């Protein structure tokens, strides 16, 4: 599998995603075993991005289902187009259509509004990538329903009958771990836990995503964030934040981190009032020094 893993990593790098072996292996297995992939990890470590890159690599459509509490079948799966149905019923009345024939018409496929799950299943032009984002935000009832869809890849609509997947989609589920995902759903998926990247990986990501950032700046940002994440923070900055920060610094024409620049742009990476307050001037000085001279931090 090794050559394939490297090939996939390279392909992903071409799409601007720096993947390590664990990520590439998980994606390969998802494809080969045809199982959904559950990706867990802190916010901003690049969970959602995996699905986006996968869709680009497969040159297919990304269908996204954003989960939230109270998400239900009519938002996730399908909904009948009521106004259209109503109009049709009115017209049928004038045509003098029999009740049964009318029902046949009104509950036809063209009166059905496809929501993400149904869309992913019924897509005709090859398999889509289905991203079920932040599945931990939906409630357990929805999880059970998702389980049913993901195991059979078929949906039963009482008025229409059963719709089977033309092509089984690639499914990526993400979770921020705000609550434990049920065991049943977990078992149905392959599992990948994403951690904050290593320094080398983060620098590579920054270089690839913010090409205008110099090597020095990327390295300093990487070191700064690595040290920052080791502190006890309410909200640890992810890669998404470091990319934002790099972009901000480039925009401000800052080539080397210094205290003034860090203070001016701290909002890009520390997004909590208490965290900002806790990071005193002396601590920032230490972090900036450490970013410029790593041996300072080590001592």
């Amino acid at each position, binding site marked *: 599998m090794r050559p394939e893993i490297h090939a996939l990593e390279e392909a992903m790098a071409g799409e601007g995603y720096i993947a390590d072996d664990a990520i590439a292996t998980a994606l390969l*297995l998802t494809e080969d*075993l045809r199982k959904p992939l559950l990706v867990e990890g802190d916010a901003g470590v690049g969970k959602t991005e995996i699905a986006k890159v996968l869709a680009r690599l497969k040159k297919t459509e990304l269908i996204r289902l954003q989960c939230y509490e109270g998400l239900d079948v009519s938002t996730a799966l399908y909904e009948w187009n009521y106004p259209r149905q109503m109009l049709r019923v009115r017209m049928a009345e004038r045509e003098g259509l029999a009740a049964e024939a009318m029902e046949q018409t009104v509950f036809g496929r063209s009166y059905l509004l496809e929501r993400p799950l149904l869309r992913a299943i019924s897509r005709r032009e090859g398999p889509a990538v289905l991203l079920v984002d932040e599945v931990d935000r939906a409630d357990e009832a929805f999880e059970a329903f998702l389980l049913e869809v993901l195991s059979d890849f078929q949906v039963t609509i009482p008025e229409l009958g059963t719709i089977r997947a033309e092509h089984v989609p690639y499914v990526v589920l993400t979770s921020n771990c705000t609550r434990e995902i049920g065991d049943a759903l977990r078992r149905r998926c392959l599992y990948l836990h994403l951690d904050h990247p290593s320094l080398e990986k983060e620098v590579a990501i920054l270089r690839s995503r913010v090409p205008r950032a110099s090597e020095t700046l990327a390295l300093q940002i990487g070191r700064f964030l690595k040290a920052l994440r080791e502190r006890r923070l309410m909200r640890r900055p992810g890669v998404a934040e470091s990319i934002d920060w790099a972009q901000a610094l480039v925009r401000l024409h800052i080539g080397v981190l210094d205290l003034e620049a860090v203070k001016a742009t701290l909002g890009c990476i520390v997004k909590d009032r208490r965290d900002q307050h806790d990071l005193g001037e002396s601590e920032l000085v230490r972090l900036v020094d450490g970013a410029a001279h790593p041996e300072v931090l080590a001592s």
Partner: protein
Amino acid sequence: MRADLLTHLAVFAGALREAGIRVTTGDEVDALRALVLADLGDPEDVRLALRCTLKVRPRDERTFEMLFTRLWLGRAGERTAGRPLGENGPGHPRSPLEAGPSGLAGHERKVEEPEGEERGASREALLRRKSFDRWDERDCLLLERLMARLASRLATRRGRRLRPVHGRGRVDPRRSLRRALATLGEVVTFAKREHPVETARLVVICDTSGSMDGQGRFLLAFVRALKRVARSTEVFVFNTELVRVTSLLSAGEEQAALSALARAVPDWSGGTRIGESLMAFASRHLSELVDSRTVVLIFSDGLERGDPEILAEAMRCIRARARRVIWLNPLLSDPRYEPSARGMAAALPFIDRLAPAHDLESLERLVPHLSL
């Protein structure tokens, strides 16, 4: 070759299970399918494939890596690492909480001072000051009446989903239209739907150890009152062992319930093992009784005799599943008390609300937090 692989995988999965990592047959099937694809000569390839297909979570990673090195790579030299996690040798440095030079350790001593003379005068005095110790029958009745009044406040949160209702509510177009078909598209009556009111489920876990002795009667009354309000309330008590007492509290005289309790609980007013008891709860009852609609109430003074690491791990598991975790600590009403007893300190990060429970007022303030 294939059969060999199968046996090897089965042995490995068995070892993982033994170490407390849940691996199902389905996971093994996934793993086998992945291994057929993997390059078996490349240990890294195999490791990553197994980690992904056996769904190894971050908290199990260390155990997995250790077993993988030992069983899959067959490195016998690392067997010493095979000791289960958490089973530290005597020479192992203890947790920073215990080893902490000044701050925490100092407080700990302060709290444990009265504890040192176990049943001595100062300890008695400390508990006597709490009004619940002097409760009689009439007060219990009063409590039950109060709880009945508070009952309505327990169920105030409306669910996010819409359920069909009769009478008032929002129009449900789907059902209305279906109904209209029967009358040739003429909508005669609108079908309605509404957000249903959701009641929290409660799980109460009470400490009955010696240091909580004075609280027993009152706790019983409180729990019985709660049960009357929220029928799905489950009750556990523990001192050294965890016992489920829900059925004993369901009906009958208070005295009968008390004596039934005393019979069921092995060592009423004995020592405390909070961590192990909560761990027992987490491993045996958590998945069955606790979900995102459950509020877990723990009554304990947090004076832990066992390993605080176990307590922290148990609290982490419970917190991950429950809607909310509330810890009621009778010692909290004592101004000298700070929640730095090592048990309490270990549990603190996983508690949504730490509240005193020494008189009626403190309970009344608690009730709004019991709803969803």
